[in-house]
């Protein structure tokens, strides 16, 4: 099995550690991983802003980069959801369809494809898990509080395998943090207020770290934490699942 590693543009530029942890984690689990060097951005920010019609070139590039793999895995629910829902090609519709079907967010790949049931990871800290909406409600990584249905959570399932980790409860289990792509600047006031409230929920419950399967939500919350001079840190879930802390 070869996996094509899809690293969102802003993770590549700002959060290389999340990408490295994703790569190392997959390798540790015996997966053959390759990172196509010519990848840029999946086109999600354009599409989300209503410029989906400009995404043709990024779609073609994405198809060129990722067609050959058995699976495509990314440490980002939001970018994966975009590819799954919106990647298309008039020139190569079959390849586009194949990609839409084999692209996975990291945690769902670990639970559903690799069926990971144990991890050699240790992270003895109080951690708050932020459920990123596009992953949770879009990819159904976890049950949603609005629905009347039995609970489950793929990220939580994995975090429970980490030695020493203590997951904190939140008052609002799955409220959006307010990042929302270009929403975070176009609607600055509401975006920040949502982020502050989301962060406060984690702080009130004594989290030392906030984690998520989407780095974009974390980047937004980190921006707020830093501005508040808080020493609570954000870490991508891959970094925790890959942690060896003694």
């Amino acid at each position, binding site marked *: 099995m070869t996996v094509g590693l899809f690293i969102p543009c802003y993770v590549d530029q700002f959060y290389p550690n999340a990408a490295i942890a994703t790569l190392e984690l997959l390798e540790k689990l015996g997966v053959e991983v390759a990172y196509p060097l010519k990848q840029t951005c999946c086109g999600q920010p354009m599409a989300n802003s209503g410029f989906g019609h400009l995404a043709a070139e990024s779609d073609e590039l994405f198809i060129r980069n990722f067609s050959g793999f058995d699976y495509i895995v990314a440490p980002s629910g939001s970018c994966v959801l975009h590819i799954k829902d919106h990647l298309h090609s008039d020139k190569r519709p079959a390849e586009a369809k194949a990609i839409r079907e084999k692209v996975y967010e990291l945690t769902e790949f670990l639970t559903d494809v690799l069926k990971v049931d144990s991890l050699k990871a240790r992270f003895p800290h109080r951690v708050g898990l932020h459920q990123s909406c596009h992953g949770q409600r879009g990819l159904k990584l976890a049950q949603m509080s609005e629905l*009347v249905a039995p609970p489950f959570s793929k990220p939580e399932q994995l975090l429970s395998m980490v030695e020493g980790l203590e997951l904190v409860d939140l008052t609002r289990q799955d409220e959006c943090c307010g990042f929302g792509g270009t929403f975070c600047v176009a609607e600055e006031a509401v975006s920040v207020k949502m982020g502050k409230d989301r962060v406060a929920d984690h702080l009130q419950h004594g989290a030392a770290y906030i984690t998520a399967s989407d780095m974009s939500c974390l980047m937004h919350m980190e921006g707020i934490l830093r501005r508040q001079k808080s020493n609570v840190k954000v870490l991508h879930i891959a970094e925790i699942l890959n942690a060896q802390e003694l």
Partner: protein
Amino acid sequence: MKETKDHAALSEAFNADEPRVNWHDETLWFVRQKRDRAAQTIPDWELLRETASRIKHNVLSNLHDYLLQFEASARANGVIVHWAADAREHNQIVHAILQKHKVDRMVKSKSMLTEECHLNEYLAENGVEVIDSDLGERIVQLAKEPPSHIVLPSIHKKKEEVGMIFHEHLGTPTGMSDPQALTEAARQHLRETFLTRRAALTGVNFAVAETGEFVICTNEGNADMGAHLADVHIACMGIEKLIPERKHLGVFLRLLTRSATGQPITTYSSHFKKPREGHELHLVLVDNGRSVQLGREDFRNSLKCIRCGACMNTCPVYRRSGGHSYHTAVAGPIGSILAPNLDMKANADLPFASTLCGSCTNVCPVKIDIHDQLYKWRQVIVREGYADTKKTMGMKAMTATFASPATFKLAGKAGRWFMRHAPFAVNNRLNPWYKQRDMPAPPKESFGEWYLKNRKKKHE
């Protein structure tokens, strides 16, 4: 539309008072939690939603036939049926009925349709005084504001503020803020209204094609009071309010109030079928853009809406920006889908007033794909040329960069390019990101650079 400010500007103003935003957010979250508890008591809740959605699907697919069936049954019951193509015609029809009966004072129960048509203003201009009999509506009417929520019209007002409004307009003592006392004052004031009005207007929650009857849901009984004491009852409904048969009411009545307020059912679910002896019952069927929306395949589902307001209560943006920031009769997620259909230019901002978190879609009792429709409206609005130029230029520059891996790498290496043009900061003038948030600290190398150094041999 005389609106000058967009959703972002209006919500920035709303956010100037943070404790108030907290209060607004918590009040509505409380309603959302009540809704959750009510939904959880019904094991088949999701099945009920699916059933409701399918019934409405049937209605929308056969709207023409159901409307004719409904009209015929209603006429047979002695109801006078009118058809209005748009808001103007609706207002004229209502006015004509009042003129015929020489009525210049009317009592009205809650109807979002008449808000959409701006009926109150129209009638006021024509010398007709309208008193809203729903308590929340009466409060905003006295405050000279539009409702900020379709179910809880004055949810943005604190009880102390209501006390001040009542003091000013109804002569209650100053400083009165006890909800019980305020409600009693309103009741006394409205009693006089009910007893003296000869015409009453109500909305319609569900109209049954099979029988020609219709149902109005209120918690205060004000629709009944108005309709039963007046000689003329005018009921106004959007053409999408139909359901095929009376037996389907059970599905919708179970869903409506649980979704809206967490109550098992509204206090009054009043059925109207025929006029009483010597009285007139008018029914105005209003299109006002609905058939256009029906023709837009991507947005057709929005006509399933039963106006429960659950999508507003759950919406993290609505809770923190207030209903008025949507500058349209129906606020929140569903309003942001309906409004661009009525006026795309004036409401081009609304589909962007969402993080697309999807919570609205999940609570919606008729399973409207709300957040997906918001996404689709964005594409339409940009294609139709209603995006601002700066954003368009930024997007084009970004697309060009992303289309070329070489440019992207170079740009990334320069580092600062990304700081200035990163996806999340694409619309920046004074970098709205930085106003209340820090930027991430730039790492010494990108993942791509790290990979070349550390894994290059392996995958060359």
